[in-house]
């Protein structure tokens, strides 16, 4: 079966989605990424969706699942490169991608993953209090 390649770069895993994914391919990516996080003890996952022409509720759910699963496995996920038309459509569809961290491009995404704990300012405040 066709698979989306996962590249390892140091402590990070990189995925560039370059094909229009059917549902089973998206589910396979979710499984593969989870396994690779454990195997490589990766600290972060960067998913580049700049080539994706749509994100519908299914793909949105997969992105959310990947972010949640990686968080449970102690890795951060950043989704980068969403096209403006995709973002507009996603919001009207009613998807907010809660829990999925995003960045404008690969460079910004990598910077986010490299920042302390990869945490957002609010999360860092919470850590500081506890």
């Amino acid at each position, binding site marked *: 079966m066709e698979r989306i390649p996962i590249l390892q770069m140091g402590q990070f895993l990189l995925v560039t989605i370059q094909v*229009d994914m059917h*549902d089973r391919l998206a589910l396979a990516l979710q499984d593969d990424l989870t396994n690779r996080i454990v195997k490589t003890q990766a600290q972060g996952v960067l998913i580049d969706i700049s080539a994706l022409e749509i994100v519908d*509720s299914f793909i949105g759910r997969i992105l959310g699942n990947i972010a949640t699963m990686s968080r449970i496995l102690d890795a951060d996920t950043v989704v980068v490169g969403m096209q403006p038309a995709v973002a507009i459509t996603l919001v009207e569809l009613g998807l907010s991608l809660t829990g999925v961290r995003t960045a404008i491009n690969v460079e910004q995404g990598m910077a986010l993953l490299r920042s302390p704990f990869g945490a957002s300012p609010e999360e860092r405040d919470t850590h500081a209090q506890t």
Partner: protein
Amino acid sequence: MLKHEVVEARSSADVLVVRQQARAWAVEMGFSLVEQTKIVTAASELARNMVDYGLGGTVELEAIENGSRKGLRLTFTDQGPGISDLDLAMTDGYTTGNGLGLGLSGTKRLMHEFEITSQVGQGTRVMITRWR
């Protein structure tokens, strides 16, 4: 009706074909990129619904006219189990499967017209239109 085409949707791979055809039609009819994206996303949601819940079905694409306005109409027809409570099915977040329950309600927001008819044991038909 200016032009029409019917695409079969029986598997998750067919959903890709529906997306590609919806895109090709939207491009040919001169819809903007954002409009194309909305149409393709709506088509993807409804085609998947048919495959996952309606045992597969057909998608009819039509270029239609209303005075000087041109529109793209997509009609999704399946002979699946049907939907017993349409109001409930149209509610954001309601799902009988493991999805997010945004397929129908979200699709309605992406299009100008949305019409759904369903009969238990007979099947479901969803007709969506976007005008230029």
